[in-house]
């Protein structure tokens, strides 16, 4: 069974938001809400300011806090690791929105919660998620974590460092940030 995951090389990312725009059109995300956004973090560096452009979205955690809190079973985790949501079962109670430590979920105006799906519908057709396909710098890599010969494992193996957000929470995000500009890892709140 595949275990889907993504990596984003922060050394390559210029924060252009091509991924975020592709996500809007691919998934018809309505105005005012978002599945994918860019955080630009500016910190003092050793000789000059350091800038991290960090795309953020649902991390499809190995231990997703959003799943157990869902009272209707609308939010679920697939065998291949994708954390998805069945909108027809969702009662928009907002429990998962609160439970997500990454603020990755939002209330869709159609009356259900929504978030990144890793473009599950494109995976069916053997295509990369829309954000990965379009990324002009090639910063995003998508693949199967179980596939030792695959491009995802290769990207992880060749990275100078690999980080996930809020590792202390034990959520085990399946979106890895590679080569954070700060020597000690991700900038911002971590």
């Amino acid at each position: 069974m595949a275990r889907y995951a993504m990596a984003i090389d922060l050394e390559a990312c210029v924060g252009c938001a091509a991924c975020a725009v592709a996500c809007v059109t691919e998934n018809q995300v309505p105005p005012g809400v978002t599945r994918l956004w860019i955080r630009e973090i500016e910190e003092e560096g050793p000789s000059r300011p350091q800038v991290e452009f960090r795309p953020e979205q649902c991390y499809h955690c190995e231990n997703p806090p959003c799943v157990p809190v869902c009272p209707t079973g609308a939010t679920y985790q697939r065998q291949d690791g994708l954390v998805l949501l069945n909108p027809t079962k969702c009662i928009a109670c907002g429990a998962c929105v609160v439970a997500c430590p990454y603020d990755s979920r939002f209330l869709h105006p159609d009356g259900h919660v929504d978030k990144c799906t890793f473009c599950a519908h494109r995976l069916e057709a053997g295509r990369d998620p829309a954000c990965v396909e379009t990324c002009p710098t090639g910063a995003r890599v998508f693949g199967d974590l179980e596939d030792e010969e695959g491009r995802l494992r290769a990207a992880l193996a060749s990275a100078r460092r690999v980080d996930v957000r809020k590792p202390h929470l034990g959520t085990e995000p399946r979106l890895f940030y590679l080569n954070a500009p700060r020597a000690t890892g991700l900038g911002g709140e971590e």
Partner: protein
Amino acid sequence: MKLKRRTFIQLAAATLGAFGLRAEAKPFFLERRRPWYRGEVTTLPSTCDQCFWKCSILVRVEGGRVRKLEGHPENPRTRGRLCPRGQGGLGQLYDPDRLKYPLLRTGERGEGKFKKASWEEALDFIAERMLALKERYGPETIAFFTHGGGESWFSEYLAAAWGSPNVAKPAVSVCVAPRETASQWTFGRPVGGHAPVDWTNARYIVLIGHHIGEDTHNTQLQDFAQALRRGAKLVVVDPRLSTAAAKAHRWLAIKPGTDLALLLAWIHVLIKEDLYDADYVARYTTGFEALRAHVEPFTPEWAAEITEIPADTIRQVARELGAHRPRAVLPPSRHTVWYGDDTQRMRALFILNALLGNYGREGGFYLAKAPYLEKYPHPPFPLEPAAGGCGGASAGKEEVPEGFRPRADKGKFFAKSTAIQELIEPMLTGEPYPIKGLFAYGTNLFAAIPNVPRTKKALEALELFVAVDVLPQEYTLWADVVLPDATYLERYDDLIAIAYKDPLIQLRQPAVEPLWEARPAWWIARELGIRLGLSRFFPWKDVEEYLEARLSAIGQSLEALKEKGFIQQRGRPWLSSWERWRQNPFKTPSGKIELYSETFAEAGLDPLPRYTPHPEPPPGHYRLLYGRSPVHSFSKTQNNWILLEMDPENEVWIHPDEAERLGVETGQYVWLENPDGVREGPVRVWVTRRIRRDCVYLVHGFGHRAPGLRLARGRGASDTALQTRYDLDPISGGAGLRNNFVRLVPGAPRPQHPPIGRLARERRL
């Protein structure tokens, strides 16, 4: 910390009260909209027009609507990827604020009062006025300003058939003119629209004010990322820690306006320390001895005083350049109209590249070639105006055919192309002859030409002003007639020729019918041409017939191109391949790379680049620097909700020490005021160590005032409005914009905008 596409994420979590919405009881059986990709999707290839890069795209259409745009996976310049602007093209196509019908002005110029007209009425009105003006003043009294994909139908076709030499594009004299002119008189070749830099093979890259990453020119950005991934070293020279500088191994925070001194010092070290490519110089260049003598005094110590970059650093970078040659390169940026001596600065940059022996070599510059194409066999036009373009005509003597007057810009430039800002004065003064009519296609005059008050006065003096655009941009309020253009997803354009390693011909074709009463540029030009008595130049009945004729002349067919989207031909990118054919790529007067320019000397210009100091900001003022947002193209995309949400306003960057002195903080709003009394804003302050203390920075393209742009209006400040002065580059005709200064005036009110999400609700995809 900045968030693109906004802080509502936190808000959602913090104010779960918002979920009270849910109390409106969503029925559990609420019908979901079927996603577009579950429907019947058809795909056709076309060419993007969100900027001038002309990426090959796949357009996905479902239910009669364009749903998704993707990079063409087979096109060698696109490689299946697209930038944010390209991805977001449908936000413009379905913008309810678009111009929908032809309009005739009923109020004062600028007042914005119009009545709806039929195409027939509007075109007859224009033709009648144009012919009357021609009668009185001659055809050259009509100027044509153009920008964007459909422009060629006016700048290269209608204007040529009509016989006016006054055709100009902001893409030249407010953008690339200096680099094109410098390249022409150094290498005998233009840079062209797609800077022919072999990024991926470069080992050492020095960028000077080059905003890659903030400009998202697709191929270039892909190649840049690839170069860094392959371990190329990157040095960025910029008063601001740009996105590119954030990725650089070295950031040289140069004092603005002193780049030429730095370049001369680098040339000095390369020659002094014998680091240049002597074989290359001997074989391909002329004027080396004169250059050597010329740069003798320009030591790193001399340059350090001027540039505020330590002499050791200057020397070190020169040595590293030398060590990595010929795979060391200094790519030219596009927007090079900075200080008025810009052709000379760009000459210095090209001379430096030549000393590294990288021109025509891997890891340096490739020799771009335009594709072979035939013109449509129309009768010869009376005139071939030299509008230029990103890669257009940049050098050469101007020949004025019998019975025509030369163009009305000052006409003393070395560039063959026309300087757009120099055509404003003749509208006001009638010198050298009156320009009484203006036809503007997609050219947002108030965001593209410096000295906006003068432009407004000039527009008031016109007897005919026609604006063709997709959006009701502010300048259209001044027009007598406003014509709604079809967007690039609704129209054909002329064949798109792209100079590349292996050159390309691309097609732009409609994916859907034009909305409302919008019409494609080719149709407007042809209909107008016929009414102007120029039918003989428009023997084709529609654009497909025109395209078919051009394609069949080179053994291709429109049908095949409609399927495939592009045609690739063989190029000759390297010097070695030219030599194999015993041909010389250097089309200079000497047939060599001209380090020293005899032609410049004869014209009384510096034959070798020389540094001259530029004005300093007056007390209390900062130099106004400006640049790009990765999600916006100039001033054309701010009303596109998808892109606006990603970057909804520009901010004025200022150094923390200066901010403290002025008592302003990040998030506060200020006015920007220039010494001519122009006030812009309110604009949000961004306090950052990423900029020097002597300058401030704004992203270009914001500060819209047009009431019809319901999303874009009132957001941020316009850099162009603050650029009331410019320094004319006497060689290229470029308008140097960076000797404009501003001060921050605190106390501006925070603009009260409803959330974009609410404003754009009806624009949902």
